[in-house]
């Protein structure tokens, strides 16, 4: 901890780790006591899974500048890998399955990251679509992945760590929160390390990065690997803690876009941004459905909800790209600065 404290001591305001500590204390100590099961099941669990996926994609796209539309594929790879490790390896603890699932996702990420060595920007984004379609196809085609289940939809095992059952809503929430906290801390350390600065250097000017001796190819593949690892674990949380089923259809292209929107709306190249964006994406449809039901009554059915969701979300993305390209995080910081300025 000494090193961490040292890292922050040059920041004049309240040290960031104090804020992070307070937030974690609230999430662990207060939320489980006051939260309803609806809050955990419908809001916090998808929020945590999508936030973590956003953190993973932000490392690749926000920091290293490699656009990817394959996030859902890496989530699926993680979820199915964890399921199969858990099913087929006797005595492997759950945490072992999760780590191995992340490694499988990372390996797939490296394979589909290879085109990034030659392709940039839009062209790379299109080539990562290959991951999206290939993984989804393979999982549907080979029923071995879903243990030859007839429907292709499989129930995940009950969560437990060291014999301690975590299958209630609060248990699954704490399970997800712990994994997300650990990996977010890892991501935060990574982006402020030399490797993280190499990511940014490659994003901002690849030629200059190469000339000053940053190993561009290796660094890009590393970004794909780390990002896919984190997204793969997010897939495990999505399937094991949130849905409690695994099916390939849940990880379609829409999900990939959703994660991309999360980091665009939240703020590219910002760890916090992934959480801001995920909060908006998760809470927004619920709020919209309440609002629509209140205003229109029975006329506001699920079809209308779905359509109005897409319209409003699309408009929001356009507005953000024009008015606040740095996302909700920049907005938040600006508001906070103004408040601080007024209070002095």
């Amino acid at each position, binding site marked *: 901890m000494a090193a961490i404290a040292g890292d922050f001591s040059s920041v004049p305001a309240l040290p960031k780790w104090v804020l992070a500590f307070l937030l974690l204390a609230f999430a662990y100590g207060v939320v489980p006591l006051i939260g309803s099961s609806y809050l955990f099941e419908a809001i916090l669990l998808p929020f945590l899974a999508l936030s973590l996926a956003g953190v993973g994609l932000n490392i690749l796209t926000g920091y290293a500048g490699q656009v990817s539309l394959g996030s859902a594929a890496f989530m699926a790879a993680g979820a199915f890998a964890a399921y199969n490790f858990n099913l087929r390896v006797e005595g492997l603890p759950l945490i072992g399955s999760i780590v191995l699932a992340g490694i499988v996702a990372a390996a797939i990420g490296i394979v589909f990251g290879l085109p990034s060595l030659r392709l940039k920007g839009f062209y790379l984004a299109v080539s990562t679509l290959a991951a999206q379609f290939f993984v989804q196809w393979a999982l549907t085609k080979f029923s071995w992945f879903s243990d030859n289940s007839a429907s292709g939809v499989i129930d995940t095992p009950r969560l437990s760590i060291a014999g301690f059952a975590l299958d209630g809503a609060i248990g699954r929430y704490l399970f997800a929160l712990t994994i997300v906290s650990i990996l977010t801390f890892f991501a935060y350390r990574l982006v402020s390390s*030399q490797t993280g600065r190499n990511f940014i*250097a490659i994003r901002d000017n690849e030629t200059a990065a190469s000339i000053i001796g940053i190993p561009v190819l290796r660094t890009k593949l590393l970004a794909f690997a780390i990002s896919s690892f984190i997204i793969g674990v997010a897939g495990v949380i999505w399937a094991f803690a949130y849905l409690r089923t695994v099916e390939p259809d849940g990880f379609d292209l829409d999900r990939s876009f959703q994660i991309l929107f999360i980091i665009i709306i939240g703020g590219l190249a910002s760890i916090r941004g992934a959480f801001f964006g995920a909060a908006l994406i998760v809470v927004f449809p619920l709020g919209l459905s309440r609002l629509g039901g209140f205003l229109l009554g029975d006329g506001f059915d699920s079809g209308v909800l779905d359509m109005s969701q897409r319209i409003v979300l699309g408009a929001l993305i356009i507005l953000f790209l024009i008015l606040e390209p740095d996302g909700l995080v920049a907005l938040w910081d600006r508001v906070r600065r103004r408040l601080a300025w007024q209070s002095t």
Partner: protein
Amino acid sequence: MPLPCYALGLEASVYAPEVFARGLPSALLPAQSAEADAGAAGSAAGATAPLLSLQGIGLSFGGVVALADIDLSVRSGEIRAIIGPNGAGKSSLINVISGVYRPDRGQVRLADVDYAQVPAQRLAHLGVTRTFQNLALFKGLSVLDNVAAGLAYKVRSNFAGQVLGIGRSRGEQRDSRGRAEQILEFLDLTAVRDRLAGTLPYGLQKRVELARALVARPRLLLLDEPMAGMTSGEKSEMATHIRAARDRFATTVVLIEHDVGVVMGLSDRIAVLDYGRKIADGTPDEVRTDERVIDAYLGVASDNEALSRNEGRAGI
């Protein structure tokens, strides 16, 4: 970007400015890389062998000849300017020397090794750094991190060690931060060290790029139009910095410049390019009075010749 406070207090003693100020051969500085040591030893042993020499370099893009049969030698420790009108092939030459382009013909000899193409990825390891004509800073990094990135080629710790803060990563980070701080101070950039590089005015960004190239203490520093787009005040300031960098770090400098006036006062020797050919090479005084240089710059040529030249130039 949070800064490790321990880096500052500890490094002050190791990287005291007086160590630099003595201007000793770089071999005596503790943190020098092995390559740089070899370079310093080479320059002390014989001033005759050039640090860099080009032999018969030819380069064309499609049908357009960018460089034709260029010979150039650069002595250790000198400031060598390459000048010429627009489209003369100056930037192409720098790109050949730094390995960005592979020449069609000829050899680049760098510290007694011949290259058909200089390995750009290994450039920093060879003790060569460069700046770019159009700014090539990392806009999303602070000034300090931009400069420290100039030492990225030496990093040997992996990401896991860096994340956990174990192994050699902490020492490396301290070391590169400390050296970057020294260079920032040397170039009067300390006041802006925590600003994002992309938010600085143009002249300062140029200077940050110089700092990033200098922090590795290269044997050979390639500057591609370091004063382009500057006011005359900024230009003379930059010239002072370049000369000071050469004097303090015993760096050999090759620079490309448009502004003949600045170059005359700054350089030891000047090569003049026109239409991809070297038309003159010598001390500033020799070049100043060379008839062909005057022709190239002032266009004292017959109307027909000038016309055909302009047509050729449009292609380049």
